């Protein structure tokens, strides 16, 4: 007899879906009932969408080709190879840059461990998840496709459905609340500046007195938390 009691909840919820506003699932678009099928709902700030590779304010790439993202990736969908920077025309600060960077989106599970592992905030995730491909080649994003454009915004590929806001808050700023996990750093801004955005302001709860917030300055110069990554 016991299991019928369980079904009672199912039936109650089902019935209330017709009469009340007690609907817990949300529709993908803004809603069929309102007729706004083509409008996307706003996504949470820390949503895990398609990756971007960020650049510093001076245009240098943040990726140093260290392969920590590839090493941590549980789906093994990232392939990175490093190479020596040309001292006369470096791609990234320091000795090494990411020469090959590929993410296979047929495998990626958007767990964000790559973002956690990245020592330079080079890889972060945008809000975009509406992208589909018709070939395996398109599914494997190359470095050219992942790295942000000269305005600091993600490149928009033909098969991606970018809307207003999808490319906001894509940077490391979003996640970097207190990377050291130490109370001593609680009020410090510990992220580097970015092409197109400068050094972002602290989040709610963080003190804004931090002297390191200088929009438009060379971001990596302030980056004490990541001394090793660039010099």
């Amino acid at each position: 007899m016991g299991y019928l009691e369980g079904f009672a909840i199912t039936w109650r919820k089902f019935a209330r879906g017709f009469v009340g506003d007690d609907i817990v699932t949300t529709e993908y678009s803004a809603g069929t009932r309102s007729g706004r099928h083509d409008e996307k709902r706003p996504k949470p700030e820390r949503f895990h969408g398609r990756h971007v590779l960020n650049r510093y304010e001076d245009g240098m790439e943040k990726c140093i080709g260290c392969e920590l993202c590839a090493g941590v990736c549980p789906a093994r969908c990232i392939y990175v190879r490093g190479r020596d920077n040309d001292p006369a025309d470096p791609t990234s600060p320091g000795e090494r840059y990411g020469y090959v960077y590929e993410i296979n989106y047929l495998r990626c599970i958007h767990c964000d461990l790559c973002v956690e592992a990245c020592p330079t905030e080079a890889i972060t995730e945008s809000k975009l998840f509406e992208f589909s491909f018709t070939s395996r080649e398109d599914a494997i994003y190359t470095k050219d496709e992942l790295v942000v454009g000269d305005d600091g915004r993600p490149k928009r590929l033909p098969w991606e459905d970018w809307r207003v806001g999808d490319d906001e808050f894509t940077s490391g700023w979003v996640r970097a609340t207190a990377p050291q996990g130490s109370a001593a750093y609680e009020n410090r801004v510990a992220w580097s500046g970015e092409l197109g955005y400068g050094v972002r302001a602290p989040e709610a709860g963080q003190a804004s007195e931090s002297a390191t917030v200088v929009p438009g300055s060379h971001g990596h110069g302030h980056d004490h938390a990541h001394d090793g990554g660039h010099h």
Partner: protein
Amino acid sequence: MSDIETPVTVRITVDGQPVDARPGELVIDAAERAGVYIPRFCYHPRMKPVGMCRMCLVEIDAGRGAALQPSCMIPVSPDMTVVTDSERTRKAQEGVLEFLLINHPLDCPVCDKGGECPLQDQTVAYGPGESRFVEEKRHYEKPIPISGLVQLDRERCILCDRCTRFAKDVAGDPLIHFQGRGSSTEVNTFPDEPFSSYFSGNTVQICPVGALTASSYRFRARPWDLEETSSTCRTCSVGCSVTVQSSRNEVLRQNGVDNDAVNWGWLCDRGRFDMESGRSDVRLTDPLVGGTTARWSDALGAAVAAIRATIEAHGPSSVALLGGARLTNEAAYAWARLAKGVIGTDDVDCQLGDGLPADLVLGLPRATIADACTPKGTIVLVGPDVKEELPVLYLRLRHAVVEDGATLVELGHGRTGLSRYAARTSYAHPGGDLVERARLVAKDLDESGPITVVFGRTSLAEDPAVLAEVAAIFLAKGARFLPALRRGNVFGALDAGLAPGLLPGRRLLDDAGPATAVWGSTPAAIGRDATAILTAAAAGEVKVLLLVGADPVADGPDRALAETALERATVIAVDTFLTESGTRADVVLPAAGPSEVDGTVTNLEGRVQRVNRKVTPPGTARPDWMIAVELADRLGVEFPQDPDALLAELGAVADGYADVASALDRNPDGVLVTGACPLPATPTARRAPAPSGSTLRLVLTDSLYDAATQTAQSPSLAPLAPGTVARLNPADASALRVEAGTVVSLASARGAVDLPVVVDDGVPAGAVAVAANQPDCQVNRLLDATWPVTDVRLEVRR
């Protein structure tokens, strides 16, 4: 290391458990054998301890109370108590690591060592977790190339003294050293003097941080990308144990593995870095027939048609095989059976006229490297410059002399890399009194200890029959011999029978043994050696020439002869690259390279070791054994179809190889194959004409970096070839009025080459020493392989 096993042990206590240590053993070693790992940076089991890093501090009580002492500096003593996990030890380890990390940049994400770094690993395991250092770290220019192969990052260095100790104590090339004092101490080279040691790659391998990195591996992969397999280096005949590491089907790195019998963990730079050639863009990937790409079936068909037609028209001895010294034992055996058992020719030679007679090599009582390095023994060096040709053997012999009190006596035609360690050197004029000098040296030898003769060609421009006479002199003294032939698996090829008059298992043709039964037939008459084969081919007697990993044009002693021979004969070449000889071939078959095949190799001691496949060959290239098996199949004989089966068949026909496969499984360090063929009667060397006043006698030597295919195709190594120079004794230089740098022409009756002069008092008067097979100069144009010596006229180029 000359640790002699003695039954006496010293009982000590490590972390409460009783441990039986060897007398004189260091606490750090005794603890490790008992399963207690004491962290360390500077200590290396193959080098003398210095106690630099202080990481191995543990509490040691030798009867006067427990105190923190460096366990790498303290030998065990009876009833010693060692505590490695106490609070005091822990505090000391944390303190040492915090100090070491003060100036360490922590750039692990860009550092090649990150992921396999002892500093990283031990910081996680023993470190404090927090640093109190908030000041600016020191900064240096980085990375600075201290040689063509090694880059130095001084910021990362923790001053453990491993690389500098290696350079000074192990390699004997003290070219890097500590400079400065206190916190500005750094490791560096001397001004304007690069770290141009042949062994520089070892410092990269033993560096406990990422201060020394290899140019060839720099940023190519991270340690977690790499897959590895154990194998054996095939660059020279020492047979160093290596681990081959690859990523994405590309060999990226080769590191030494400590094999107590052979290399002690060391490698030479040529052996370490010539794996670069495997990923070359110009590897042969498809067969060529008449210079154009062909399908395997067509190429094999063309080869077989040529062989079959020639045998039918002119008999089996119109087909000859040169090479095989670069193959695995299995492939060498397959080719030997193909030539001797299927085609029926005995005109087979794995050496190119630059080695020693095969029956002499296999007939002399063989020594092992350990025999040669016996403490207080005597080493007689009659042969090439071991440092140039067999570099890791040089390290072992040097250690025996410097550390273990062995006596080195050197006979030859001028100074070599080992001369400075020799108790006695005796340099003969080429073609002159080497035999007489050998007699004098032999008379004075200390016969209380073992005598080992390291034995090879003293000059490629001289008749090797002289060396047979020298060998006989030392044989009478009860000496054993370590033959110093250089090509990778030349000893495996000789054991497989790739030499005239020989069959597998060091048997002579007239004592065929089981080979007759397995093969069906063996050649009736003793065939020609390499020089005779090329001469016969030039004369039109040998119609088809099989070149198996051999390049007689560039790599042989007589270029003109090889060119004529290859011109006239139908040439079937099997190689990894299109060599100078390959471009003259009618059929070229692409072969798999060193890390692309499974099998075994045999080193100069007769030690069989495994080589393992790590990557797939490029294009359609096939393993050498498979090509021989395919050719045999088309000639109507079925061979065993894989390396294991070939090794089993080699074991069936060659006594020493009978149980090698199972013995190798039990003993990965290698299995010694013993036994010798009957020693040939000592031939009388053709007497060289007396030197005339107007000519100099040529001494042709080898240098480590030359135009050999793999070296020349390795981007890191190719620029290191020193180039050819004419080295002259100062007396001759002043008599001829030439100075260092003067470009002279050396002319023999055969040809002439232009070279700059280097004045060198290590060259005997009346001789001129020239390195063979350098990329910029075809010295082998000067030689005629039939001459007992080569005399050259020297003229100054204006």
